[in-house]
């Protein structure tokens, strides 16, 4: 670092130069927020302090626009006995039985993935995995729900392959199986893809770690990768305010990941946990060192002294505000007692992980940082971590909402296929459409097997992992979300996303327990977007209460828009379930000739936001499918009991594309055809074949049962008041819908599997 370039902005200097103009607006700090910072400090902030407030009070870190709505997840939380850690920590923790607990959380990495698809997606995986690790857990899997612009759009061909390679490149190198997620295309995501990442970890109930710096005199250790200039957004503004040339610039604002470093860091942390060497731990993610130091201090005894110049750097020219804002990946911060330090360093040395004591816990209530002996930060950490601004953003129902909902996809507006031949063509067109087509091209780039506990993965209704080889205890996870439904009705759309994930978990035989959510929306400064957000939160909280599945944590991603055009509001919901014996799992494939196909649940003429309206007519209007949460609960219990009692050979949830899509997938997966009868003695429906085949009514599943179990299963449905109808039999090598059409499996498979290789191969 050249001598002339940089003059550190100390507390002393800040107090002496109150008039110095500070580039707070360029850092995203509003006038009133800046005034409040000055009021809190009783002086102007130093440049490093301003950097810290700007990132800690950002939307991303402070949830300032969403907080008032997110509160409902606590206020309306169902009372349950299995929630060990709720929202607010790095991830929620759920008791899953025996002495085990599971922690899981979903996050977004949307904007970085648009700018730099590979690194954006890769570091999205890395970030959420560190959250899981921070809870004291071994990360055991990831899932990636993705949204892109139209599949044939040129930019999708830039973004999608990079995102998929990034997820694979990072996740595979961590040794984490990728067991689920979604790939969905819609024009609304053209300039703003969604890259969400969910991770799950397992730990002993007694070994939960928390992000708090307790015990004055305990040491604060920074370990993992060196701090570099990557991921610095606004810090360059501060830097350029004081000096310009003379240093490496053009730093990418997207972080660059090193999965090898993270893999080593995971193993290193787990060994440190096993030796019980930390009193608190925090990962460095968004807002880097600013966030880790303030959150640890704010949650603990309250004070911390940090010697910032001790932080190991990749770039020696970095100045304090840049170090504080850097989002360099693969870093952790631990609080360690002095007597545990030697053993801590020994383990770090074993894994070749750099570890440095950079500070000490104090009881002063102040977070103080020095830079070569001069004090550059002196703040109450709670003002950064806990007392950020809270906004009651104005919101109102969009004027266009009524006309959107009135634009129903009825037969008068949208022409429906009538003849058998037309239905046949529609089936083939739908199954080949990008959202419904086979995703093998994507999924083959992910390792879903590593660690050897993957019982179910992609292509099944949910991913499932074995937790114990002794008892076969396991967990299931599914993520779902439908932006079109949510656009039509945000309250119901969010609930439908939850219901689908809940149903998917139950379809594999697991009991749904808890929820994580990634709420992807446009700008909160747009009152119409804010209304969508408020409604979605209200809907989700209400439904979680009714289904008994608490939200344990999650993430809000705002500003997903291009210009004035927001994405469809897209809450992605992850549901975690538990299953006593994973060998009882239910697959979606039809595996055995002669078994009976039953449709559980009620089908109505519901095409608002449907895949059919989207694919065939490019239409979005009307209302999403109706939701009956009590019915969903009953259906889930039927599916779980059917699995547990060995009644079910296969089960598949009905959602996008309706009944015929589900049956086709189960046929193709099992390599057996099906004869389907839409009207019969036990199925005296009055629905026309098109509605029966393509409607997206919620609360339904198709199951295959051995003939010997049919009566027991249908009795169970009737007892629970859930409609059930025999709709066919597993048979032959074609999908045959009686009196309508026949499609040989080969032709069906060709349509289903051809799309992705043709688009991206």
């Amino acid at each position, binding site marked *: 670092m050249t001598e002339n370039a940089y003059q550190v902005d100390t507390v002393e200097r800040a107090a002496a130069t109150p008039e110095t103009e500070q580039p707070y607006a360029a850092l995203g700090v509003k006038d009133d927020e800046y005034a409040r910072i000055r009021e809190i400090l009783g002086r102007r902030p130093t440049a490093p302090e301003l950097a810290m407030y700007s990132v800690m009070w950002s939307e991303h870190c402070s949830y300032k626009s969403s907080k008032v709505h997110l509160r409902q997840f606590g206020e309306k939380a169902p009372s349950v006995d299995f929630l060990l850690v709720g929202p607010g920590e790095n991830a929620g923790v759920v008791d899953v039985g025996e002495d085990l607990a599971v922690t899981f959380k979903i996050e977004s990495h949307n904007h970085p993935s648009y700018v730099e698809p590979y690194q954006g997606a890769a570091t999205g995986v890395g970030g959420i995995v560190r959250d899981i690790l921070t809870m004291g857990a071994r990360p055991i899997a990831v899932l990636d729900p993705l949204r892109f612009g139209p599949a044939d759009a040129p930019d999708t061909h830039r973004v999608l392959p990079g995102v998929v390679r990034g997820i694979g490149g990072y996740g595979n190198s961590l040794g984490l199986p990728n067991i689920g997620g979604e790939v969905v295309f819609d024009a609304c995501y053209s300039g703003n893809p969604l890259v969400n990442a969910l991770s799950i970890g397992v730990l002993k109930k007694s070994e939960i770690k928390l992000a708090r710096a307790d015990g004055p005199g305990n040491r604060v250790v920074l370990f993992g990768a060196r701090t570099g200039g990557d991921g610095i957004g606004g810090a360059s503004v501060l830097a350029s305010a004081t000096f310009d040339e003379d240093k490496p610039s053009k730093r990418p604002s997207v972080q660059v990941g090193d999965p090898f470093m993270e893999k080593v860091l995971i193993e290193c942390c787990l060994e440190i946990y096993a030796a019980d060497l930390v009193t608190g731990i925090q990962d460095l993610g968004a807002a880097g060192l600013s966030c880790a130091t303030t959150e640890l201090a704010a949650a603990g005894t309250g004070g911390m002294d940090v010697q910032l110049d001790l932080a190991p750097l990749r770039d020696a020219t970095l100045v304090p505000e840049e170090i504080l804002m850097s989002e360099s990946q693969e870093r952790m911060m631990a609080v360690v007692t002095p007597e545990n330090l030697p053993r801590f360093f020994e383990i770090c040395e074993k894994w070749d992980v750099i570890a440095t004591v950079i500070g000490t816990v104090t009881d002063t209530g102040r977070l103080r940082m020095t830079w070569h002996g001069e004090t550059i930060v002196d703040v109450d950490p709670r003002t950064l971590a806990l007392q950020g601004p809270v906004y009651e953003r104005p919101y109102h129902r969009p004027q266009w909402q009524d006309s959107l909902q009135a634009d129903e996809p009825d037969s008068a507006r949208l022409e429906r296929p009538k003849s058998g031949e037309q239905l046949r063509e529609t089936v083939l067109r739908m199954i080949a459409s990008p959202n419904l087509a086979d995703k093998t091209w994507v999924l083959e780039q992910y390792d879903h097997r*590593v660690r050897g506990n993957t019982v179910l993965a992609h292509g099944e209704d949910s991913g499932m992992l074995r937790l114990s080889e002794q008892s076969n205890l396991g967990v299931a996870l599914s993520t779902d979300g439908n932006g079109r439904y949510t656009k039509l009705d945000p309250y119901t759309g969010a609930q439908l996303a939850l219901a689908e994930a809940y149903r998917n978990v139950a379809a594999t035989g697991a009991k749904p327990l808890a929820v994580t959510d990634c709420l992807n929306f446009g700008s909160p400064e747009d009152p119409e977007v804010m209304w969508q957000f408020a409604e979605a939160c209200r809907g989700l909280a209400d439904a979680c209460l009714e289904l008994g599945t608490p939200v344990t944590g999650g993430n809000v991603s705002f500003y997903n828009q291009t210009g004035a055009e927001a994405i469809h509001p897209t809450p992605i919901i992850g549901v975690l379930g538990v299953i006593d014996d994973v060998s009882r799992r239910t697959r979606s494939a039809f595996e055995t000739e002669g078994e009976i196909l039953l449709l559980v649940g009620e089908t109505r003429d519901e095409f608002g936001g449907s895949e059919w309206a989207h694919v065939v007519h490019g239409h979005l209007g009307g209302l999403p499918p109706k939701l009956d949460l009590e019915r969903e609960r009953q259906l889930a219990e039927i599916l779980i009991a059917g699995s547990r009692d060995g009644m079910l050979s296969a089960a598949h949830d009905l959602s996008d594309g309706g009944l015929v899509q589900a049956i086709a997938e189960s046929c193709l997966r099992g390599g057996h055809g099906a004869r389907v009868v839409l009207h019969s003695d036990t199925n005296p429906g009055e629905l026309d074949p098109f509605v029966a085949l393509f409607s997206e009514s919620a609360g339904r599943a198709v199951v295959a049962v051995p003939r010997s179990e049919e009566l027991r299963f249908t009795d169970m449905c009737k007892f629970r008041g859930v409609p059930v109808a025999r709709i066919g039999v597993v048979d032959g090598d074609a999908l045959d819908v009686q009196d309508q059409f026949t499609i040989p499996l080969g032709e069906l498979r060709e349509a289903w599997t051809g799309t992705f290789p043709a688009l991206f191969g």
Partner: protein
Amino acid sequence: MSARIGVITFPGTQDDTDALRAARVVGAEPVALWHRDPSLHQVDAVILPGGFSYGDYLRCGAIARFSPVMETVIAAAREGLPVLGICNGFQVLCESHLLPGALIRNAGTLFINRDVTLRVESNSTAWTSDYEIGREILIPIKNGEGKFAADERTLDELEGEGRVIARYLNNPNGSARDIAGIANAAGNVVGLMPHPEHAIEELTGPYPGPATDGLPFFTSVLKQLVNA
């Protein structure tokens, strides 16, 4: 006393858990070995598992080959210790010159995770004696750099000496002569790109199956060690 099968963990190794499980499932005593520790702790056989040793940033397996434990493994392999290198482990064996050839970027350039059918070509190695020659087995591959390459003379030599142990029925990555795995001349060192340790249990093996076609790799070596 049962045989001890060691599994080496390098920084960046991923499938050590799976290889240890495979050893346990067939009844061997699994022993975790560490890259920095040159001792093999009296194991009777060694597995170099899959993963991305040292991040594979230079060239797959290129750095692992120089780790302290590999010095011992190389010497012991030359003395006849059964060694199986799976995926990244195969790459390490090639870098160590215990096996000829190299593994390079897949023909389609992408990472591929897929269940593939192999034909067993040799059962005269330590790791394949429980197979019948010609048996078709379903084993997962998962790699980005799994294309086996060698000069023509080496390939002819491998074939002529019966050292090709398995071939792909539908070559997924452009491997020379469909080669999925090879052995050294003595038959104690085997390198295999597919992952038999991921095909050892009905619950987690390839679906729809067969799910456990990978087991004979591990039973083969165990029988040989127990009978020895």
